[in-house]
């Protein structure tokens, strides 16, 4: 730990030190979990538009076959983790705090695990930048740290902004989780290789891998793997939450802040997770898409905490059964880490690409308890990594003034949960901010709808007016025609009469 690190550590004012609970799983190697009887593959496992299915129910699919294709710029494909039959395409429970169902493919494995023909690549480092991004996209890789942003889209950022540095996030600051730690210890070569490939795609000259100091084995392993590559360096990070947040990582490792509302690429930095790097290396070298991921199964209630490599689509219930079930009353099942993860409404939801952990927490672990009045102790402000004043924002939101909370920086909140973790009054601060962000988004949606409705109304009244005008014109025309016809008829009649008179002047009535 150098002098520069010491200074940087001293200057860090923010963050909390939650009990890590890492020892539950950190010494358990990643084991492969056998395939379950059924896989549920949601079409939206990433940020962006849901993928569009390209297979039909009843169809037999092979391992690695593309089941759904990306739609639009920001989207990602879904592949079959094994061979089997598509049983259904419909709405199934997905990991989401609402407990709502969403579109998903159901795959019944046939046990043959028959693969499609993959295209391995001997030397991916010779590929063009665009080709690397294309293959990453084809492999359906998304950010595995939990943000699930399509990795290829992020690799394209180098085109718009000059990116000089790729940061690999090996912080894994969330308590309990150790799958990134295990990945770095077990596959350091893949991590470094993937990082170098991504740096190539981005046009970045340097790769910095940041790893929290509480993972000395991972630091050593990755340092060894990086030793042959001068552009790759490993930096130890102070142990505190949320060190692994992109903005904090960028500020700590580069000394530059990401501008509010902007992307890190604007300051020449792109951040990827170490797990994503390992997958990128694998996808490029073997040609096999992303269909499995490593995750941590932990919590005091689980019988056998473990790190597992599971097929995407495996249900949480299957995973818990595989780990020997629970041995105590479970207060909450959480997907992801306890600080930012989501409470699962049930265990019949599948693991998705962004699932970094499945936690079975007892009530002692989960904290909770009813909220009391804010005593303005400002601990929340002290721990906020962004420099917000959560108590003040929550007070405004409680008073029904979400827009006033925006003035205090609501939109800069990264939702790390440090404030709520440390609040002695147990005020659900993060919940308030999600609520306010949601209602602001809803207000924005309704404003947009309002505007479009206004246009529709205007179009309708214009149409009605036009129709009325046309009707009137038509009527006028018809009337004119009628009258003209009448006149003509009259004239004709008169003419005829005259004729007749001329012809038969002798006739009289």
């Amino acid at each position, binding site marked *: 730990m150098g002098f520069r690190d010491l200074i*940087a550590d001293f*200057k860090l004012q923010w963050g*909390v030190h*939650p*009990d890590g609970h890492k020892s539950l799983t950190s010494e358990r190697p990643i084991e492969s979990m056998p395939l379950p009887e059924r896989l549920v593959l949601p079409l939206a496992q990433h940020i962006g538009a849901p993928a569009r299915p390209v297979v039909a129910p009843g169809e037999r699919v092979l391992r690695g076959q593309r089941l759904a294709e990306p739609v639009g710029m920001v989207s990602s494909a879904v592949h079959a983790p094994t061979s089997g039959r598509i049983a259904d395409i419909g709405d199934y429970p997905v990991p989401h705090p609402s*407990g709502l169902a969403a579109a998903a493919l159901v795959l019944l494995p046939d046990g043959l695990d028959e693969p499609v023909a993959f295209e391995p690549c001997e030397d991916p480092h010779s590929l063009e930048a665009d080709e690397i991004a294309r293959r990453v996209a084809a492999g359906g890789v998304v950010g595995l740290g939990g943000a699930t942003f399509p990795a290829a889209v992020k690799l394209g950022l180098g085109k718009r902004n000059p990116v000089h540095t790729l940061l690999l996030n090996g912080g894994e600051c969330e*308590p309990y989780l150790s799958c990134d730690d295990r990945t770095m210890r077990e596959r350091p070569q893949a991590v470094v290789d993937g990082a170098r490939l991504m740096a190539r795609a981005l046009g970045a000259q340097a790769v910095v891998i940041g790893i929290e100091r509480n993972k000395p084995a991972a630091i050593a392993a990755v340092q060894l793997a990086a030793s042959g590559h001068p552009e790759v360096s490993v930096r130890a990070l102070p142990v505190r939450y949320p060190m692994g947040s992109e*903005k904090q990582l960028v*500020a700590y490792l*580069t*000394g*530059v*802040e*990401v*501008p*509010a*509302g902007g992307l890190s690429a604007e300051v020449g930095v792109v951040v990827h997770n170490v797990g994503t790097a390992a997958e990128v290396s694998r996808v490029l070298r073997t040609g096999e898409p992303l269909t499995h991921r490593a995750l941590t199964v932990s919590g005091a209630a689980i019988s056998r905490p473990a790190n597992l490599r599971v097929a995407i689509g495996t249900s949480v219930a299957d995973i818990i059964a595989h780990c020997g079930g629970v041995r105590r009353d479970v207060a*909450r099942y*959480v997907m992801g880490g*306890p*600080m*930012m*993860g*989501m*409470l699962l*409404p049930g265990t019949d939801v599948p693991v998705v690409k962004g699932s970094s952990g499945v936690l079975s*927490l007892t009530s002692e*672990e*989960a*904290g*909770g*308890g009813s909220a*009391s*009045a804010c*005593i*303005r*102790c*400002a*601990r929340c*402000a002290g721990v906020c*990594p*962004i*420099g*917000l*004043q959560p*108590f*003040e924002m929550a007070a405004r939101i409680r008073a029904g003034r979400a827009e006033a909370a925006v003035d*205090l*920086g609501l939109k*800069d909140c990264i939702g790390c*949960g440090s404030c*709520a*973790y*440390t*609040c*002695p*009054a*147990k005020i659900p601060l*993060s919940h308030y901010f*999600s609520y306010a962000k949601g209602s602001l988004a809803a207000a924005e949606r309704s404003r947009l709808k309002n505007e479009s409705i206004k246009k529709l109304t205007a179009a309708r009244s214009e149409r009605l007016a036009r129709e009325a005008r046309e009707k009137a014109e038509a009527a006028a025309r018809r009337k004119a025609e009628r009258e003209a016809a009448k006149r003509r008829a009259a004239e004709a009649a008169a003419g005829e009469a005259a004729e007749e008179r001329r012809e038969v002047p002798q006739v009289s009535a």
Partner: protein
Amino acid sequence: MTTPVHAPHAHDGGSVGRVMRLVMLALLPVTLWGFYLFGWPAIWLWLITVGSAMLFELVCLRVSGRGGPTILRDGSAALAGWLLALTLPPWSPWWIAVIGSFVAICIAKHAYGGLGQNPFNPAMVARVALLISFPLEMTQWVAPAPLFSGTGPDAIEALERLLFSSPIPDALTSATLLGHVKTEASRGVDLLASVPSFGAAAADGIGRHAGSIGETGSWLILAGGLFLISRRVIGWHVPVAVLAGLCVPAMLAHGLDPAHHLSARHHLFAGAAMLGAFFIATDLVTSPATVTGRLLYGLAIGFLSWVIRSFAGFPEGFAFAVLLMNACVPIIDRFTRPRIYGHGATDGRAA
């Protein structure tokens, strides 16, 4: 379907009640020392103040429909009463305690919306209201009459004294150092004469002189305050700033004109500076939320107390200084808001 619960699914285990209990624990040594020094009247007074504060809290919670007796367990009412008791003349009659508790809990706290909503420190509002309303009773100080020494009344006598507000025997009345020098100065006796005439015990920090419980045992208060800082219940910023704001001008003025300005040592140990710096000014609800703000706030409180003690009509100015600065807290908070990450960006590299 279960109702969605938002992350985080973990908590550091702290609670409001725990915060209050730690503060009470820190107050315990000086309170016991005060009980010893001023005897049974002080014990009864403390009991009545704390008890009536809790009673008023209960009544206010009931009336406003904000909750029942369980809320009492957070200890905030008891703590407000406790702090108030430490600032009263130890032999005050019962109704001083009850009216003080009423003002602290019903007016200064619940009229503003209860715990966390009050802009002014309840104990200080109560003390100032009492001081202005009942200047006679609030300046009736007694010299220490320690328990078991036979100088003070026993438990029963003390209770009678408390309930029937019998006058304090002349032999026991005394003045605080700050009060003494103020009166002397008003008849033209300067500090060089008036400080020695008060006695040597004025500023040894042990408190064997007249004053409220919170004005005596300064060392014990300091120890309690350091305990709170070590347990991270309060930050170091406010106490340090308060003491600096008080001592620096005191030292300068004393150096220039020792005949008319007390030394920093007297300012620190003769009045309520320690209690104020560690237990009053640090009140979470009524102090600023930012580090810069807390430093400013503390400095201003210290400086204002020095100004009031030195130039105003009242011998002790801490309560007034705290209330004045309480009123400034929203402005301080507003102008010392921390910079939000990514705003007003620092383009230059930090390290």
